[in-house]
């Protein structure tokens, strides 16, 4: 944890951030939105890294938190007139947090594979509810709504352009990264990592492991909900497909491809996956998951550390 190392870390951080800030000015419209989408999925993947990489719990239920973030934001945007950005955040985060609290309470009683299956089943519960409760959620068709303006009450109000939306998303994702990094380096984060390394010993030392796990799942769910709100603002529709467990599976894929336990790895993994999807869907159309799935299996077998796994130590100092 030398000063030189820290300087290097922050220099790389600023360089990447500067590139991401400048990117929308140079990129054409399609790739600009693509980059914004990568950041949003990256935030979702990063939120689940707190569980997978730092606490050692593989969640297959992040679609529930993400989806509830989307639907919460949708509710706010449909009720308020004109649609209010901050109400969308409030509703989305409250919805995601409520679901996360519910899921965390039950699922943290179980470990390893059982935790993964339980979170999966929970996300399916919310999927079925959203899918069948047509009067409220629009059922299979989902909901469409208008994009709110970027506004600070009493100060200014401008509609989002794709550049300002990108910068807004970038700001939220960067802040979330810094907060998550701070969390993983705090004493709380150290306890989570010690749970990952040796749960029995952590309990023996006297930490209330269950309580730490519940808080970890809730924090993770909150950030997943934040990603959901951003996604709702970008795409202006909510559909039950976002709550389906395949989304959770993709989130796990992002993590494994990018490298778990690094926080930035999952963002890189999301970028890698989305680029692969973009590239392969030109040749394989909707069957792009065949080559992408094969690459994923190969990476699980031959490259379990992921793309950024080799930087894991230096990223966590």
């Amino acid at each position, binding site marked *: 944890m030398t000063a030189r190392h820290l300087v290097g870390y922050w220099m790389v951080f600023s360089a990447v951030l500067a590139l991401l800030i400048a990117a929308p000015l140079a990129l054409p419209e399609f790739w600009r939105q693509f980059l914004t989408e990568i950041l949003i999925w990256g935030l979702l993947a990063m939120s689940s890294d707190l569980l997978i990489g730092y606490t050692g719990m593989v969640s297959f239920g992040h679609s529930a938190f993400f989806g509830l973030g989307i639907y919460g934001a949708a509710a706010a945007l449909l009720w308020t007139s004109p649609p209010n950005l901050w109400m969308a955040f409030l509703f989305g985060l409250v919805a995601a947090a409520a679901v996360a609290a519910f899921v965390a309470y039950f699922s943290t009683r179980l470990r390893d594979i059982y935790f993964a*299956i339980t979170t999966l089943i929970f996300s*399916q519960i919310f999927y079925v509810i959203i899918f069948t409760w047509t009067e409220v959620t629009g059922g299979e068709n989902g909901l469409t709504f208008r994009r709110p303006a970027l506004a600070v009450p009493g100060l200014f109000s401008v509609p989002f352009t794709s550049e300002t939306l990108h910068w807004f998303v970038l700001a939220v994702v960067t802040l979330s990264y810094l907060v998550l990094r701070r969390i993983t380096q705090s004493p709380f984060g150290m306890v989570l990592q010690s749970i990952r390394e040796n749960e029995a010993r952590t309990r023996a030392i006297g930490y209330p492991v269950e309580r730490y796990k519940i808080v970890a799942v809730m924090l993770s769910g909150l950030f997943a909900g934040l990603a959901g709100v951003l996604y709702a603002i970008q795409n202006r529709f909510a559909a039950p497909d976002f709550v389906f467990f395949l989304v959770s599976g993709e989130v796990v894929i992002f993590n494994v491809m990018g490298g778990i336990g690094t926080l930035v790895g999952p963002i890189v993994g999301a970028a890698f996956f989305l680029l692969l999807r973009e590239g392969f869907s030109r040749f394989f159309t909707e*069957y792009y998951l065949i080559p992408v*799935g094969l690459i994923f*299996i190969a990476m699980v077998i031959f490259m379990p550390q992921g793309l950024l796994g080799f930087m894991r130590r230096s990223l966590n100092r």
Partner: protein
Amino acid sequence: MAIDQLLQAIPLDQLLIQTVNGIVAGMILALVASGLTLIFGIMDVVNFAHGELFMLGAYVGVIVLTATGNFWLALVIATLVIALLGAGIHVVALRPLLGRDPLTTILATFGISLVLQNYALWQFGPVARKIQEPFSGYFTLFYLDYPWYRLVIALLSAAIIGALWLFLKFGTYGIWIRATTQDRVMAQAMGIPVPQVLTAVFAIGAGMAAASGVLFGPLVGVNHAMGVDWVLKAFIVVVVGGMGNLGGSIAASIFISLLESYASIWVSPAQAVIFSFVVLILTLLFRPTGLFVPTPK
């Protein structure tokens, strides 16, 4: 009286029909889930691709059936082909993961399920295929003509599971399998080829999934996404029954299926699934080791 009205509100005939339906669905689910629980209990592998093996089995059944016109031949060939596929998957993708965290097998099998599902979509298209029932007799159950075929499926499933149990209990190779479950290192030391045993177990599980796919094919259409529902249900069953516990998963299969059948008298089948989810949550709350296993001391 209130009680009389309540009794009249319960449609007895429907209740009986749904009981039969529930048991039939439960036996098929038991066949799927026992393959899953076999693979989990013996190999510590959570097989996410199980539903896809079920679906591919049904497709192989469709192909053989259109080629030969013989349903029973289709059942046997589909079982064998998918068992071979399962062995191949195990050798290529799962054997390298031996000794790593069991969670990595979830990731690998999830990738496999994505590949297989999209392969089926690519190869067979989105239109559902139909498997013709091998015979089409009916008997009268109240106002319904109930197909004999459904009862035959339930019996066949029971027979296959029974055969598996006998094999595990008395067969030489069954004893190898159980020895591998108990202590892998010791089994290896006694000369049991552990990696081959594991491959064989995966193949047996895959074959059972394929057999249930072919058996179930006539009741619903065969399409590329049919596996997803089943694997989720099978996971619920395996957790409720106690992971790796064969008897528990059979009991849980029938229990869950009956519950959903009864529930679908009053709510739509899509919502009836929520009842099994609730059972799962209650199980996890009060008996996390599974409903149908003896209380651990």
